[in-house]
């Protein structure tokens, strides 16, 4: 069964490898350029001396240069990859067998269909996790200078660092596998699987789904009438470049700051990754169960 799985998913594995190479080339080039600019602008010394308070203009221009969609098309591409790749790999796994009638060949050999499916899911999931982990590692290295100056709690880079990328990929894969079983059609399953993945994706990306349960509040005494105290100031009023300031209000001679501390990165990753994984597990579990009991 291992050979069968490899043979049937060989071209997808090659696509993943090619995609990874392309991402790596762009990411390494960007990372090297970023590192050169970072030291040329003297940002390292500025950060060490004043935690960024002494060079807000240099930080702003660095972040603008390397974090805008125009100069960093990779960011846009990486947004869509988990959903698209998950659908491309997941939809044919059952959809194509049912569409072309080859299920009658596959499931009348001496391997019962449930074991057939579990073996394939285990191996393909393993491959996708490896791909996701590799992309995450490359992107995390590439963005390291930028991550010192900007907020990691929002995508990008939240979607390509930590657990998010691989878990989101598995979510798209699981939904497409289930869609293939239900629709018995590869293209239909790709489309339905992709749009089903968009639901949790938009939920966490646009609506900052789990963000607000982990916020912290700080009260900062005002000096000189609290100048420049907006949510967008660099560095933020909390003094840490990685903190995501959500709201600033004045209360007497204090600023009440609602923010998400940079240290919340991993708890948020676990929440978001866990949500993606729960959806993937539910979809794949349903597919296995449906196939197992489908004797009618």
């Amino acid at each position, binding site marked *: 069964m291992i050979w*069968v799985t490899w043979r049937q998913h060989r071209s997808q594995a090659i696509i993943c490898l090619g995609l990874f190479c392309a991402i790596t080339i762009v990411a390494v080039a960007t990372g090297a350029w970023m590192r050169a600019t970072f030291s040329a602008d003297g940002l390292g010394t500025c950060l060490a001396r004043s935690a960024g308070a002494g060079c807000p203009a240099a930080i702003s221009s660095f972040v603008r240069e390397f974090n805008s969609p125009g100069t960093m098309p990779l960011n846009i591409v990486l947004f869509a990859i988990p959903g698209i790749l998950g659908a491309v790999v997941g939809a044919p796994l059952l959809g194509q067998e049912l569409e072309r009638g*080859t299920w009658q*060949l596959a499931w*009348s*050999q*001496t391997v*019962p269909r449930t074991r057939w499916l579990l073996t394939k899911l285990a191996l393909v999931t393993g491959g996708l996790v490896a791909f996701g982990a590799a992309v995450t590692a490359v992107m995390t290295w590439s963005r390291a200078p930028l991550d010192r100056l900007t907020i990691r709690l929002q995508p990008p880079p939240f979607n390509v660092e930590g657990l998010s990328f691989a878990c989101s990929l598995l979510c798209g894969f699981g939904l497409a596998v289930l869609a293939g079983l239900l629709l018995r059609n590869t293209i239909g399953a790709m489309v339905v699987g992709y749009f089903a993945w968009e639901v949790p994706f938009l939920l966490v990306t646009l609506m900052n789904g789990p963000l607000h349960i982990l916020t912290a509040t700080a009260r900062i005494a005002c000096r000189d009438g609290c100048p420049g105290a907006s949510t967008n100031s660099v560095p933020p009023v909390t003094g840490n470049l990685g903190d995501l300031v959500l709201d600033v209000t004045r209360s007497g001679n204090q600023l009440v700051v609602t923010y998400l501390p940079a240290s919340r990165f991993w708890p948020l990753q676990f929440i978001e990754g866990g949500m993606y994984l729960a959806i993937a597990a539910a979809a794949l579990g349903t597919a296995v169960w449906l196939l*197992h009991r*489908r*004797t009618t």
Partner: protein
Amino acid sequence: MTDNASVPALRADRLGKRYGHAWGLRDCTFAVPAGAVVGLVGPNGAGKTTLLALTVGLLAPTEGRVAVFGEPSRAHTASTLARVSYLAQDHPLYRGFTVADMLHLGRSMNPGWDQALARGRIDALGIPLRRKIKELSGGQQAQVSLTMALAKRAPLLALDEPVASLDPIARLDFMRDVLAASADTGLTVIIASHVISELERLCDWLLVLNGGRLQLAGAVDDLLAAHTVLTVPRQTPDADLPGRRISRTDSDRHSTVLVAVDGGRLAAARSRQPGWQAEPAGFEQLVLAYLRRPPLGVTAAERALVGGARPAGEAVAP
């Protein structure tokens, strides 16, 4: 798994399968001896594919059971899957695989796989191992499918409309190879088809299905011996005929009647009515007679359901 001749190769006991409200197959009971080549005949939707899928373990019965060499078939179990080689309609194969890949798949998915047999057959057929399936002719694809089924080394081979999409030469070659395999190894074969003339040359056993009910089952020679075609004057009522009337065709002055009757009663009837002409029944005549009459055991209401309740073109769901 045994070739013991006393254990039927294929045995069904009140086997039934319901799709929603309609029965695709019902109350099906028969026993086929080992080594038989069984023709499974019936119109589209008669339950042929359902019977095969139940045998192979792709479906679970709603009632009754079917056993292969004494072991009841159970859906989705390795032991059932190992006992039957199944060739589905249109012999599905992975189109992007090479022939060698297909054999590799057979080897990885079947513990009893006979690689020497598979390679030998493919070489003898002159099919290049490195050629992709989609580049093969329909006849070659059918032969690759048959090779996979034979190399699985299961004692029962189930073929569902194996030659429906093939040209006449490919049909002959395919069927010749099936018969040779059966003769060489004592393989029991069941072939579903609605091409009756094809089966006449191949089968020594016959199952006729119509409306999801078994109409006729038995060894071809026994069945032919038990039926006679009588030509009688047109006004002869059915009650005067010997045995059971299966079909009757009336012309201007005479009627041609196929009856199921034993030799003694036939002789007695002919001595009473010397004007009656009797001829042995032919294979095709016999099958058509059973297919043309209203299906046994099916009520008018059920007939309407069987015809319309299942999605067209889909005989069996996975």
